[in-house]
């Protein structure tokens, strides 16, 4: 049997390749993302090992707050600690470091790295000690004067700033002019991951990045012959003598009275590696979701391919059975074929994946994101898991078809019995209903119960399976409608719109001499043309034959469509979800912002100096200009486990002005009631705690430690203000970094807003990180940020959709192979090649539309249920955007058009005579 299976594989190379494409792509995506993240990780491990190579120990703040986005805020240490360490026994040299943000402004007045998704704008102090300085000067000199700055080489190259040039840099202390004294690299990289770096003297850095008389950490080197742990003991002893309470790196939880943490050099290197791993961890999880989606789609496609090829060979199987092969042997032969397919495809997928990873790296490099190091890092675990995943997916997908093959009666070899393609609609409907119900229960439990995201994902997967099981039952009636001639006219109309768009892009490109636009326009034109032709294909005999061919085997059509359904379903879901999020954001901002203008920071790291609000307040015609600060704190909520208090965002406002510009919806008390050591609490939390006005709640601030605050106000709108609101006074007393992330401006009644805007711009132009907008524009631009994430998600889903496109192409190609004689007959009685292409194309479009339709329905359902579930987080609106969903359908049909290209060409090139003669 083994030999029979191998012969069968070698005899049908094309079939194997077609089946394998789905596995290859799935494994490539899987291994590509792994190799890519491993490469980045290794590169950064190496980079930090390099820049920290001489560090034998470090002292840093003991208290930290993990912010919910994966970062960490750490308390600073008093500057005198440096002296204590320098004097400690065994310390040869020490240096205090200061880190913060500093936005470099280029010659055109544009702020670098200040976008919401850009790499961070880093600011450091210059470390005189060469052993401990991560920066290497490549030109000029270290910063000496207060207004000297050293910038990284990548930024210098990008901005054309050279030594001696004047450069504007915005920090929390304002926008100031500096002189470039030198250009440096960070370790061996020009700029790690595209960050900009500005390096100041320590005194300047303390003022503009950190706090005067504080460092973020102190690094030091050991004297000859002193090992790291011995050094750590010495430093701890010295700190103790000086009166600083210290803890070790591994101490957890950190006692509240601890001030400093002492690390060995190895711990410093370990910690920086962990930090990178953690920040990439979220990205990894995110990628994994899409890898799983792609693999599920692959499984659908492979399952379908095996089902078809097994059906085509049932007679051969029956013959094997007739001459004495046991059922188990037939099963084994098909599974062996799957195993070999899986192995070969995994190997190819792995190679392709490594290629993709290198391509991604090159792409990022070309976008200015410098990834240190070079070669792709291929961990043994990646290789093993790639094979495991590829082979498992293939085998699992092949089990059911193999079982069907083994059940073929031997008599089928001799008699002309109809094989395959039949199913029991009632039984199928019942099974599908049960599966769908289970999936929905799982989703609901995950969303509304405590089930978590995993349960939601599992439920979504089960729902897809349920619809896939049901789809053959509805395939025929639905496809009859989808394949009808009038649908062709709709497709033609779509195509005409695409053609128009393409023509406009092409003309625009020619007028602007923009080669990209010309190519893009040409591609869109070609696509639109293919579209129009597909619509034409629906008409007449080609359309009828295409339609009938699609209807011929509802199981096959349903399976093929289901693969596309998953990708399109998720695209539709994300589209609806994003549109709903947009609408909700606009609603919230429209209701809760009562200011006329808003100046907001465009960056997540960088903020607005407090003086901006003061300057805006002084502009004639301004009634109120008031900022909002805030950050993550630990809140000792009454219902939290001691030692496991939640981290929440707190907003800080000027209590006397807040209600003039924000509508927080105070239910009890008011904003101006919030004085020092007092706090306003969001209604839901307030109710959860069964609190009353006058009760207290403890907040753990980074610098100020644990503070007891009195609840004096309760408000209902937490979407902009978060769950807690304190006054500037309280914030300034407990947090070192003071900057606004948003400033709201309200005009005096009767002021000409256009004129006022011009006056405000004079001020805001000096702060390029801040963007001046009307409240409505602010709502729009906040909503626009959702689009950036949306595009990334679309890009990642593209992989799943490409795989399903191959699935359609594969099914068509196998069907054409099956119908060779019929196609030959059609050609003999006068069907032209273009008519034949049309026939295949329309069949593909019907299958694609079927999958797309199911996908969009599921997407709408998922969108609805998620928006319902997230009502508490400010999701007030379910928005089903008709235009975007129309575009999704258009895109789905386009997948059919594209998948049909090759099979249609193949079909039209069939040799008439040979086809008729085929047995």
């Amino acid at each position, binding site marked *: 049997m083994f030999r029979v299976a191998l012969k069968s594989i070698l005899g049908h190379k094309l079939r194997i390749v077609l089946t394998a494409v789905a596995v290859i792509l799935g494994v490539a995506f899987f291994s590509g993302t792994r190799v890519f993240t491993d490469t980045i990780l290794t590169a950064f491990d190496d980079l930090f090992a390099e820049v920290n190579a001489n560090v034998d120990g470090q002292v840093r703040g003991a208290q930290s707050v993990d912010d919910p986005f994966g970062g960490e805020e750490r308390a600073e240490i008093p500057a005198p600690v440096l002296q204590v360490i320098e004097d400690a026994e065994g310390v040869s040299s020490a240096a205090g470091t200061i880190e913060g943000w500093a936005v470099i402004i280029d010659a055109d007045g544009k702020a670098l790295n200040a976008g919401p998704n850009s790499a961070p704008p880093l600011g450091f102090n210059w470390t005189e000690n060469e052993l401990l300085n991560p920066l290497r000067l490549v030109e000029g000199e270290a910063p000496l004067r207060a207004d000297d700055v050293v910038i990284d080489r990548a930024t210098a190259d990008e901005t054309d700033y050279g030594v001696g040039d004047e450069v504007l840099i915005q920090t929390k202390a304002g926008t100031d002019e500096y002189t470039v004294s030198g250009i440096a690299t960070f370790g061996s990289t020009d700029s790690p991951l595209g960050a900009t770096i500005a390096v100041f003297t320590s005194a300047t850095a303390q003022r503009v990045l950190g706090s005067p008389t504080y460092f973020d950490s102190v690094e030091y080197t050991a004297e000859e012959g002193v090992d790291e742990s011995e050094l750590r003991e010495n430093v701890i002893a010295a700190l103790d003598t000086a009166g600083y309470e210290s803890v070790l790196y591994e101490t957890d939880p950190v006692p509240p009275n601890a001030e400093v943490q002492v690390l060995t050099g190895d711990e410093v290197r370990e910690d920086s590696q962990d930090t990178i791993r953690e920040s990439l961890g979220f990205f990894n999880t995110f990628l994994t979701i899409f890898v799983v989606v792609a693999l599920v789609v692959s499984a659908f496609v492979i399952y379908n391919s095996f089902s078809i090829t097994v059906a085509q060979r049932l007679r051969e199987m029956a013959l094997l059975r007739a001459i004495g092969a046991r059922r188990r042997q037939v099963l084994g032969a098909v599974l062996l074929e799957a195993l070999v397919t899986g192995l070969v495809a995994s190997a190819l997928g792995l190679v392709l994946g490594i290629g993709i990873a290198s391509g991604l790296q090159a792409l990022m490099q070309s976008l200015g994101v410098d990834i240190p190091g070079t070669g792709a890092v291929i961990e043994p675990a990646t290789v093993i898991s790639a094979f495991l995943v590829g082979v498992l997916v293939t085998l699992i997908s092949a089990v059911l078809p193999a079982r069907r093959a083994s059940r073929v009666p031997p008599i089928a070899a001799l008699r002309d019995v109809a094989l395959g393609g039949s199913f029991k609609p009632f039984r199928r409907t019942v099974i599908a209903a049960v599966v769908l119900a289970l999936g929905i229960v799982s989703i609901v439990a995950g969303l509304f119960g405590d089930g978590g995201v995993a349960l939601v994902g599992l439920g979504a997967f089960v729902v897809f399976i349920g619809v896939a099981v049901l789809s053959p039952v509805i395939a025929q009636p639905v496809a009859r409608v989808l394949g009808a001639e009038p649908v062709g006219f709709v497709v033609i109309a779509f195509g005409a719109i695409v053609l128009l768009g393409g023509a406009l892009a092409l003309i625009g490109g020619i007028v602007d001499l923009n080669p990209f636009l010309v190519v893009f326009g040409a591609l869109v034109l070609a696509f639109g043309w293919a579209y129009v032709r597909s619509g034409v294909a629906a008409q*007449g*005999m080609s359309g*009828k*034959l295409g339609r*009938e*061919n699609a*209807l*011929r085997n509802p199981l096959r059509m349903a399976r093929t469509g289901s693969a596309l359904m998953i990708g399109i379903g998720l695209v539709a879901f994300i589209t609806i979800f994003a549109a709903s999020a947009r609408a909700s954001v606009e609603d919230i901002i429209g209701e809760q912002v009562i200011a006329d203008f808003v100046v907001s920071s465009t960056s997540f790291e960088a903020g607005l100096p407090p003086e901006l609000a003061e300057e805006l307040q002084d502009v004639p015609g301004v009634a109120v200009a008031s900022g909002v600060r805030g950050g993550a704190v630990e809140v000792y909520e009454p219902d939290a486990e001691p030692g496991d208090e939640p981290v929440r965002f707190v907003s800080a406002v000027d209590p006397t002005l807040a209600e003039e510009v924000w509508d927080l919806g105070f239910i009890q008390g008011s904003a101006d009631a919030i004085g020092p050591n007092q706090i306003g609490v969001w209604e839901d939390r307030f109710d959860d705690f069964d609190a009353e006005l006058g009760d207290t709640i403890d907040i753990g601030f980074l610098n100020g430690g644990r503070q007891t605050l009195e609840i004096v106000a309760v408000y209902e709108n937490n979407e902009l203000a978060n769950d807690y609101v304190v006054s500037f006074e309280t914030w300034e007393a407990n947090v070192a970094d003071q900057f606004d992330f948003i400033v709201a401006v309200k005009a005096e009644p009767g002021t000409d807003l256009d004129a006022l805007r011009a006056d405000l711009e004079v001020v805001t132009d000096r702060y390029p990180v801040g963007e001046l907008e009307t409240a409505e524009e602010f709502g729009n631009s906040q909503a626009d940020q959702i689009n950036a994430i949306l595009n990334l998600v679309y890009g990642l889903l593209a992989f799943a959709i490409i795989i399903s496109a191959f699935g359609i192409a594969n099914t068509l190609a196998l069907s054409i192979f099956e119908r060779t*004689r*019929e196609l030959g*007959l*059609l*050609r*003999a*009685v*006068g*069907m*032209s*090649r273009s*008519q034949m292409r049309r026939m295949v194309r329309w069949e593909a479009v019907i299958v694609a539309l079927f999958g797309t339709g199911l996908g969009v329905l599921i997407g709408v359902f998922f969108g609805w249920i998620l928006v319902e579930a997230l009502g508490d987080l400010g999701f007030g609106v379910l928005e089903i955007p008709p235009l975007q969903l129309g575009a999704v359908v258009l895109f789905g049909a386009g997948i059919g058009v594209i998948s049909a290209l090759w099979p249609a060409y193949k079909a039209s090139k069939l040799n*008439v*005579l040979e086809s*008729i003669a085929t047995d």
Partner: protein
Amino acid sequence: MSVAMPPTTTVAARAVEATKTYGEGSTEVRALDHVSIEFAASRFTAIMGPSGSGKSTLLHCVAGLDELTSGKVYLGDLDITAMSEKELTEVRRDRIGFIFQAFNLVPTLTAIENITLPMTLAGRRPDQQWVDNVVSTIGLGDRLSHRPSELSGGQQQRVAVARALASRPSIIFADEPTGNLDSRSGGEVLGFMRSAVDDFQQTIVMVTHDANAAAHADRVVFLADGRVVDEIHEPTADAIFDKMRALGD
């Protein structure tokens, strides 16, 4: 070798010095060796010969399904050897009818849709009266709206003949049309083809190895080793048997 036709009849198709070879050098096989033959209009011609005699190749080449190595094929006055693939397709669609041994019908179309298929492909409206006329003679009655899988083999072949007739082609080529049928069904189909020639003045060229089938023709042409070696006009089955025996089949 040239076979003269009675001067009163027109020629529907003719091959001139038709040669078809496969392979090269020592492995060269000559399927057709300078065959020149004319097929008269409104006549029923049968082509016979032992296996490998080139009879099917001749049919395929004259019907525009296969290309000659050298020589010419004319349909009426049209030189089809000089035609592009596209022109050939149109010729097949508009001027030629086909009946194959099996798989004659498109399984997704009903009998009547199969019959009018070439005209639908051409975007022409079928001559309804003519189609009704053809359809009524094949005696399918209410089975016209059935799909091929619901018809018997004989019924399927009759539908195939009706399709070949429905577009009023200048010539019909039939390749072993009764090869898969029992003798009763085969007889019905052949009778039907015969009446198409007699009643509708249709031209039919049929390849067969069945002497009884060939006996329905007006003329039987014998091929051997790629050459026309003999022919009989107004044949009887016995006369055909004798000739075939002489050819060593």
